[in-house]
């Protein structure tokens, strides 16, 4: 193994051994298992097919460790990131739970911090934590699990429907490696909207290594909004594993605006018949940013439905990557799947690598997919300019419209409006 990569991982593990043991024996076992895996795995390189376009070398050159000191924030510091619609909010500062900024947490049915789950209520978490997002082959998931301490644990009891969203806010404040963790267990026929939101209050380099696990029971419905607005110098590597039971519905909208390098792996497994999943995404990047989305939707049972629209807007010398795998297993008959990857290049130096992948092992299925990469339409530009809009205003408006198609799918109005503003502000012309 590459010594530099080994040293890098060893340095990331610094301090892990000093973590106080949890009163939960299973959690200590899980962490130990994860530490072992970190020792056995290495940092992927561009020689790995899954990381072909995303070079992690810049990350391994920056020695980062868990935060030595915990930042304390005032409510005013995070005010502009709050969602007025939220029924409850869990705030994590550099991965550490901040109860004084969180609300609605006392209600046991909504959310816990991992450190405070009453022992009697750990069962739904114990069987899933680190199991949905297996870390055997994933060094970043293993690292996250090795450092598992605080985390958002949400259990929605059967048939309970939450109209208002739950806001999980992860705030970065310092140069450190942080390990956000979420686990959502939605009971049968329940319904919830979760906003997983990554923001920064400081510039500079840091690593967010996040893992989210979502289990959606029979006929439950989960809306998952994911927003990545990390600082310009940040590295953001995240994994979300979703398992869908019979008739379960999962809709996800993921927006990536920030970070110098970001990678999002979304794995959805339809483990029950007739499950439905929608996985939409938007990456809007410029400068030297790289945003990589890898998704895998696994139709393992009959009559599953999946819809995916992923869009990338790349300006400057930015590089967007999309790899979307759709698997239809033997026996997953009557699967109905549609995937589209639409990409907009705003400059000659920007680059998009889009790769839809279909692996179909059943014969009676409907699977459509397509990918396009293009520039702004010259006829549309001329039309707008012929009405007096400057070329820059016309470009901005068209770029905004391209991204708005995804933003409009976010079911939380205040977040939608804020992101529309952010997209407008970020759609600058970059020759």
């Amino acid at each position, binding site marked *: 193994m590459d010594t530099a990569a080994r040293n890098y991982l060893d340095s990331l593990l610094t301090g892990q051994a000093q973590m106080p043991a949890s009163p939960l024996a299973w959690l200590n076992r899980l962490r130990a298992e994860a530490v072992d895996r970190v020792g056995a795995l290495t940092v992927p390189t561009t020689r790995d097919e899954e990381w072909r376009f995303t070079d992690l070398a810049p990350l391994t050159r920056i020695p980062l460790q868990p935060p030595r000191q915990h930042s304390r924030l005032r409510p005013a510091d995070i005010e502009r990131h709050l969602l007025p619609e939220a029924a409850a909010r869990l705030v994590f500062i550099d991965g550490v739970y901040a109860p004084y900024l969180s609300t609605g947490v006392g209600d046991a049915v909504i959310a816990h911090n991992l450190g405070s789950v009453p022992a009697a209520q750990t069962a739904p978490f114990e069987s899933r934590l680190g199991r949905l997002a297996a870390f055997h082959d994933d060094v970043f998931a293993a690292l996250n699990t090795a450092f598992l301490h605080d985390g958002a644990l949400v259990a929605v009891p059967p048939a309970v429907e939450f109209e208002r969203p739950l806001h999980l806010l992860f705030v970065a404040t310092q140069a450190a490696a942080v390990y956000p963790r979420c686990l959502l267990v939605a009971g049968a026929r329940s319904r919830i909207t979760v906003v997983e939101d990554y923001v920064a209050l400081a510039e500079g380099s840091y690593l967010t290594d996040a893992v989210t696990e979502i289990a959606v029971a029979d006929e439950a419905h989960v809306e998952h909004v994911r927003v990545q607005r990390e600082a310009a110098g940040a590295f953001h590597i995240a994994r979300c594993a979703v398992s869908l039971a019979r008739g379960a519905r999962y809709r996800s909208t993921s927006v990536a605006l920030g970070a110098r390098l970001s990678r999002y792996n979304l794995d959805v497994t339809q483990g029950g018949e007739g499950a439905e999943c929608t996985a939409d995404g938007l990456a809007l990047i410029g400068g030297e940013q790289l945003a990589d989305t890898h998704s895998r939707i696994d139709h393992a049972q009959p009559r599953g439905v999946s819809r995916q629209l992923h869009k990338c807007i790349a300006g400057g010398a930015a590089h967007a990557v999309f790899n979307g795998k759709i698997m239809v297993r033997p026996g997953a008959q009557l699967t109905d799947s549609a995937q589209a990857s639409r990409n907009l290049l705003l400059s000659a130096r920007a680059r998009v690598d889009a790769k839809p992948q279909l692996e179909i092992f059943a014969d009676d299925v409907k699977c459509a997919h397509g990918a396009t990469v293009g520039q702004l*339409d*010259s*006829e*549309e530009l*001329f*039309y*707008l*300019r*012929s*009405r*007096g*809009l*400057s*070329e820059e*205003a*016309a470009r901005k*408006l*068209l770029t*905004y*419209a*391209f991204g*708005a*198609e995804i933003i409009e799918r976010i079911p939380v109005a205040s977040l939608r409006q804020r992101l529309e503003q952010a997209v407008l502000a970020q759609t600058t012309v970059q020759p």
Partner: protein
Amino acid sequence: MINPNAKTLLEVRGLRATVNGVEILKGVDLAVRAGEIHAIMGLNGSGKSTLSKVLAGHPAYEVTGGSALFEGRDLLGLEPEARARAGLFLGFQYPVEVPGVANSQFLRLAYNTLQKERGADELDPLEFDDLARAKMKLLDMNPDFLERSVNEGFSGGEKKRNEILQMALLDPKLAILDETDSGLDIDALRIVAGGITRLATCDNATVLVTHYQRLLNYVVPDYVHVMQAGRIVTTGGKELALELEARGYDWINAAPPAIGAAA
């Protein structure tokens, strides 16, 4: 209405233009004064649409000769948006669909851009909505069109009405309407023509580019020009349109050579 003392809005002389290296305009002469309505007629491929696009500044066309002055200013050196701000309007033959941009957002942005240029007040969304609804009523347009994406999923007739709505809002000095009548049924044609007629004043001018005489039953032109092979080959009054309708275009070839621009 012809007034020999009116200000000349547009003066085109010997205009030549190519697209992809092929010459389409081969020396066009045309003069338009305030208060006038012109019709440019001709068969497909005669260059009439190209003339419209070249005057509006479409980047795909390259001007290779001649001149075009708009109120005495060199039009050809201006960006498309500067031409629009100077008061030139092109009604598109095929209005472009712009998915994701609400018609109201687009119209207000264009309206406010021109208001700013003219030193007039910009309107906020509510004020603009009132204005747009009033104008839409004149064109018998459903206000729902404000909320839909620009031209997306509009029928042919709806797109053309949306063009005239933009013209009504932007209040240009010179409107060039490229095949605005194509694809309209008779009711829509009447409404669109009524809109064009109502917007015509003694201070502005309209150039109707059309294939058929039909529209000219409703919008009566002061001048009718016939384009052929990239030139205006003959010019007459409204009766010329009727003659073209009755006899077709072939007889023009046998007629005396072009008399050029309107007197």
